[in-house]
């Protein structure tokens, strides 16, 4: 076989061409994507909540990329999400956050579900100076660790007590006696203590104020004691499976009150599905509800846009976890676009300056990184549907007392 000079030349060009083609996507990859990392509890006890986060972020990702990507200094970059399952094991969440930053080289982090695991991931993010936006942590103890890179879309729990007590006193002037039962766990305990203090401050008598242990399979002792106290308002706080059991046992034991609040029971669709008629009349607090109508920045300009798209895709209503997590991604995108770069430090500074409204509501971070307080929705199940009782600007129903 004889090669002419042209033959050699074309062989070299061909080889070089193949090499360039082989390398170029990698070069393009590194420069043309914005990488987001998320340690998620896709298996284990938090699997349900993590799936909600996953759904929300993938919806956002599809929407952003369909529009060409994130506008970084006039250039559209595709968004990429790297997820790892940390199996609901906090320690593993930390390890995977580290892996995401050091080996996957993600630009920004989205935080896992719950205050505890958010705290762990935030510590790692702080060490590597990587901005992290949390969407499901509402305990202030997560945000008082001096993390400069942690931001959270939920408002502090404290905004949930005063307005609720006031509303119920208005609607039920004879309201005097309150019973509080909470799960002995970070969030529910804070809620139980908060509402009990707010009720006392408003001049109500707290006739029962107890916590139940994690793993309690029977609430009849507590409920019998509450029944003896004859309260006008029963406030129970815990996780969905506990609240379903408590509500069921209340009905079994014939325990009734004009107002029954379960936090955050009715904020979750599965609570209403799991209880059927027994869910009717139950009130709760929530961080978000689709009945709100906000307009603002991001891929979903209005609450309705988000709701409609979610409904079409998931065939069910979103809850506050979906909305808050989608909002976290929207806020990150907004900060990147304002910074005009993916530089971690500059984006962090823009995040700190955030003062925008999104489909989820206003987002403005306090000095500790937590979204500032606002009037959070008080909701009630009426005829298996959620009605918003307060605040006045988004209300679409009135408190109906349980007979």
């Amino acid at each position, binding site marked *: 076989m004889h090669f002419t000079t042209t033959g050699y030349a074309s062989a070299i060009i061909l080889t070089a061409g193949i090499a360039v083609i082989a390398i170029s996507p990698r070069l393009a990859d590194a420069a043309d994507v914005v990488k987001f990392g998320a340690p998620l509890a896709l*298996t*284990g*006890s938090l*699997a*349900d909540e993590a*799936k909600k986060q996953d759904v929300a972020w993938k919806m956002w990702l599809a929407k952003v990329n369909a529009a060409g990507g994130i506008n970084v200094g006039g250039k559209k970059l595709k968004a990429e999400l790297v997820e790892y399952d940390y199996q609901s094991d906090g320690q593993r969440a930390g390890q995977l956050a580290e892996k995401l930053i050091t080996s996957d080289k993600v630009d920004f982090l989205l935080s896992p579900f719950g205050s505890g695991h958010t705290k762990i991931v935030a510590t790692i993010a702080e060490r590597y100076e990587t901005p992290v936006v949390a969407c499901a942590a509402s305990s202030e103890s997560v945000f008082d660790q001096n993390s400069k890179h942690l931001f959270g879309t939920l408002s502090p729990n404290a905004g949930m007590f005063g307005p609720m007590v006031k509303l119920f006193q208005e609607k039920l002037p004879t309201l005097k006696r309150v019973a509080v*039962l909470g799960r*002995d766990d970070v969030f529910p305990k804070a809620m139980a203590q908060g509402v009990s203090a707010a009720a006392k401050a408003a001049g109500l008598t707290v006739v029962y104020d*107890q*916590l*139940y*242990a994690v*793993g*309690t*399979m*029977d*609430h*009849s*002792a*507590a409920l*019998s*004691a509450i029944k*003896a106290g004859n309260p006008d308002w029963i406030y129970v706080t815990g996780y*969905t*499976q506990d609240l*379903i*059991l408590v509500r*069921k*046992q209340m*009905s*079994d*034991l*014939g325990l009734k009150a004009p107002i029954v609040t379960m936090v955050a029971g009715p904020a979750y669709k*599965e*609570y209403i*599905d*799991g*209880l*059927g*008629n*027994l869910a009717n009349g139950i009130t709760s607090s929530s961080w978000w509800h689709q009945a709100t109508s906000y307009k603002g920045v991001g891929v979903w300009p209005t609450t309705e846009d988000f709701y409609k798209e979610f409904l079409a895709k998931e065939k069910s209503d979103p809850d506050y976890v979906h909305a808050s997590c989608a909002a976290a991604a929207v806020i990150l995108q907004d900060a990147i676009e304002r910074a005009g770069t993916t530089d971690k430090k500059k984006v962090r500074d823009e995040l700190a300056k955030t003062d925008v409204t999104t489909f989820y509501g206003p987002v403005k971070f306090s000095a500790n990184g937590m979204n500032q307080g606002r009037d959070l929705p008080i909701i009630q199940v009426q005829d298996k549907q959620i009605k918003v009782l307060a605040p006045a600007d988004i209300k679409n129903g009135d408190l109906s007392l349980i007979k």
Partner: protein
Amino acid sequence: MAYLQTLVNGIVLGALYACLAVGFSLVWGVLNIVNMLHGSLIVLGGYLTFFAWQGYGIYPLLALPVVALLLFALGYALQLAVINRVVSEPVLTTLTLTFGLDLILYNFMTVYYTATPRRVTLDLGAIDIGGIVMPVDRLFGMLLALVLTALLYLVMRRSRIGRAIVAVRMDSAAAALMGIRVNRIYAVTFGIGALMAGATGVIFAMVYPVTTNLAGIYLGKAFVVCVIGGLGSVPGALAGGIVLGVIESFAGQFFGPQHALTVGFVLMLVLLVVKPTGLTGIKGYE
């Protein structure tokens, strides 16, 4: 009057505990296997019941025999194909194996069914006898628990297979010499354990939300009941369950719900020190 209500609550709860623990106790007693799968098997029974009810309108009671048999088949197959390979190893080996199997089953259910709490919304109401309230579904669960436990007791005492199980438990080498196929007996025993877990799942689906989040709690309860009642014995599990239920019920009233579980665990620790064989004091030779 209030005490009587607390006592009734405790007994009804205790029967549910007994139901939950009897299969676990049997497997531990006969095979010397701490079956970490037990909680997840109960939840699996619950899911089967829930889906039968939601999808086809089948009432839990009608689903019970089918669910129980399915779980028996699953347990039998698992023991024969997998666990028998290591059954004579130290308890830590079998514990690790069932722990691994539990991870698989637990996460399978979480992924395919999601951990969303679901409930069979059959609200049967409550019976009020002279001011003492008894929820119909729990009462029903209690009756079923008693019947199942009694049946198991009879099987263990009267049937050939039951006697073979007891024989293998007492001395597996001697039993083998008598012509008992020990591996089959192991499989049958594990199958019965799974069957009881499935039946418990059906009963619990009417009382508790069905979710994988509860699997660990069920397993923990089974442990406590077995230690209190005595290992491997059917009446022991019944006694342990009822004692635990009544104690938790009264503790909840006197010390508050925050400490009800603690009192149960303290009782377990005390018994481990003063009477390690449990309340029934026998080691399950029915």
